């Protein structure tokens, strides 16, 4: 039928306008598929891989809940990428594995130092610490859960560093000893022997915990903080990995131990008894995401050499917290394709997608009980990853699929 010319013009204009708008608006609303005009080009490119590759990591159990969840999320978004299951074998083993190059990254809560390298390699082996870079990938805390049979109390027990040190050294042996009872006057503690739970393997979580004890109670805890397994007092139980310690506390009556916060948060039976620890400002705080964030905020400028955020000042700062790191070779990747996947994965892992509306690693971390890395630490991660080079000396972290 005949349409009036004006109407036709109007219709055409509308059609063009709608098409133009939809070409811009729909992808922007969908989020994941747009050719980015704003936002972080590196982050977008993290999900684009030209060549297929497989990488795998091992190490810190502190980071294990994040790695397990994040890997699945990353693989779902990134064609061509395969990531082997993260082997939660402890920070010490993670460092050994990356030195031997049987994994692509080593997870550790304590950045690897030259001393660590000398300890793990027979003397004469020339690996310098400068051959590695350390990428911060998560921020978490260490909770002190306990399992005291016969304790009917809704309020968490309070401990100080010196009391915990005394327990772990075997000086304080019973739950109702005056030191503990004094901190918890309103609770009737049973007269039973304390079962101390610690790590059987070389652990970064042990480092964070002993560093706290050493910083806060140096007169009681006289040894330097380290990853090596603690000597347990009689009757102590050693667990393998954070998971092992958490399981041991659940299964052993009258026990107490130190566990990364995610394990407690995701486990209702452990959540029932988590201690409040007295911080530097004198406040007793149970672990919380806000408390961990406050500890991180109190010491914003960390580096791989100065990384500890235990025992920070501030009334809301939870006193036992720390970052966890991925140690990777600066050059000498197994192949360029693997190296590219590695840096892109770690970049994705250490960033939040909030800018783009996409999901990135730190968003997954938030759902696992970690505090998303502060913006300056995310920037530190990116800057560190940009130092990683491939077979021709080229920077592997690209803002395209390369």
């Amino acid at each position, binding site marked *: 039928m005949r349409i009036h010319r004006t109407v036709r013009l109007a219709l055409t204009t509308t059609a063009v306008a709608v098409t133009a708008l939809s070409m811009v608006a729909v992808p922007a609303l969908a989020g994941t598929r747009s050719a980015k005009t704003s936002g972080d080009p590196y982050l977008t490119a993290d999900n684009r891989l030209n060549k297929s590759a497989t990488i795998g990591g091992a190490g810190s159990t502190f980071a294990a809940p994040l790695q397990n969840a994040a890997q699945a999320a990353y693989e779902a978004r990134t064609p061509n990428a395969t990531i082997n299951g993260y*082997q939660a074998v402890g920070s010490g083993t993670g460092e050994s594995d990356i030195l031997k190059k049987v994994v692509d990254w080593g997870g550790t809560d304590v950045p690897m130092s030259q001393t660590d390298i000398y300890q793990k390699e027979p003397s004469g082996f020339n690996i310098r610490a400068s051959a590695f870079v350390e990428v911060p990938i998560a921020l978490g805390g260490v909770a002190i859960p306990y399992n005291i049979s016969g304790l009917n109390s809704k309020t968490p027990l309070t401990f100080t560093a010196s009391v915990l040190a005394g327990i772990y050294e075997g000086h304080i042996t019973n739950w109702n000893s005056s030191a503990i009872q004094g901190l918890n006057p309103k609770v009737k503690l049973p007269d039973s022997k304390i079962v101390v739970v610690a790590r059987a393997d070389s652990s970064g979580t042990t480092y964070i915990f002993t560093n706290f004890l050493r910083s806060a109670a140096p007169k009681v805890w006289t040894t330097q903080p380290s990853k090596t397994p603690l000597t347990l007092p009689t009757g102590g139980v050693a667990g393998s990995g954070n998971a092992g310690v958490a*399981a041991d506390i659940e299964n052993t009556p009258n026990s107490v131990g130190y566990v990364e916060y995610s394990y407690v948060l995701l486990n209702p039976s452990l959540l029932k008894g988590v201690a409040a620890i007295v911080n530097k400002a004198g406040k007793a705080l149970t672990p919380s995401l806000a408390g961990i964030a406050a500890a991180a905020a109190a010491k914003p400028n960390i580096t791989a050499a100065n990384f500890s955020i235990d025992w920070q000042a501030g009334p809301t700062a939870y006193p036992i917290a720390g970052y966890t790191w991925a140690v990777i070779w600066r050059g000498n990747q197994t192949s360029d394709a693997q190296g590219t996947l590695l840096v892109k994965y770690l970049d994705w892992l250490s960033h939040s997608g909030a800018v783009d509306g996409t999901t990135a690693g730190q968003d997954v971390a938030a759902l696992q009980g970690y505090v998303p890395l502060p913006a300056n630490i995310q920037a530190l991660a990116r800057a560190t990853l940009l130092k990683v080079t491939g077979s021709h000396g080229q920077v592997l972290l690209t803002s395209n699929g390369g």
Partner: protein
Amino acid sequence: MTMGVIEGIPPDPILERREMVQRVARKTLDRRILISRGMVGLCGVALLLALVPLFAILYSLLQKGIRWWNLDFFTKVPQFPSLIDPNAIGGVSNAIIGSLVIDGIAALFAIPIGIVAGLFLAESSSKFSSMLRTTAEIMTGLPSILLGIFAYQMIVIGFDEWGVKLPGIGFSGIAGSFAIGVLMIPVIMKASETALRGVPAPIREAGLALGARRSVIARKVVIPTALPGLITAVLLAFSRAVGETAPILWVIGASNIVEWSPRKEMASMPLQIFQSATSPYVALREEAWGIALFLVFVVLVINLGSRLFAAWLQRERR
């Protein structure tokens, strides 16, 4: 029967002794019967005691494991809990496929080597063969964790000593297959030797009399005759290998997706049971029963199947 003194005949020491023994026996009979009933009863009690834990395990396995057996369990990969979905669990398809690949490849090289070496033991009586036999006996008794060390140092890390250099492959299914294969070989070797020796000599000799050379006799006569025993041996060794955890503890890495390539890291059922059972998450611990039930099911099916098959073959041969 009392033998009194009969006039004229001197007392016979043997008969006197017999009379004394019978006297004692009659006196103690009641007590002996009582003791016998008691001790035999104790043996019966021992049997009941022995059955209690064993039935308890089977009962726990069935009761706690069967509820996990659904389609998702066998076809999905594991999922992890998060704050928005604390009960996420997924399935164990990665472990099932991983076990299949690792044990399958192990069997692929262990079976031929084991049977051929068994044939060697059956046919040769040199010093070398008796030394080999002793070696096989020692190897079957060694803790399997030592084979895990071996596989880790040979395959995962690589070998660089005594002038020989082997590049390491890293964590992989192949490393696990190597460990499990080396575990299986001596077991198959010794059982094959027994089966092959069981082939009656006249059958071998008939082959020789016809002028056939030994390899032909072996291939066409000895092995087919010993086949029931060989198959039983192989299946039993395989069922043991399927359940082994220690040799693959640190050599296969980990995988949360289904992985078919042995060059890559994989999961495995016994390892998954170990990790889930020691996990702090209740759901994972409960899931371990489901995997354990399936593993026991597979092992029992192979065991039963091998016995039934061997019995069937025997009957067929008659």
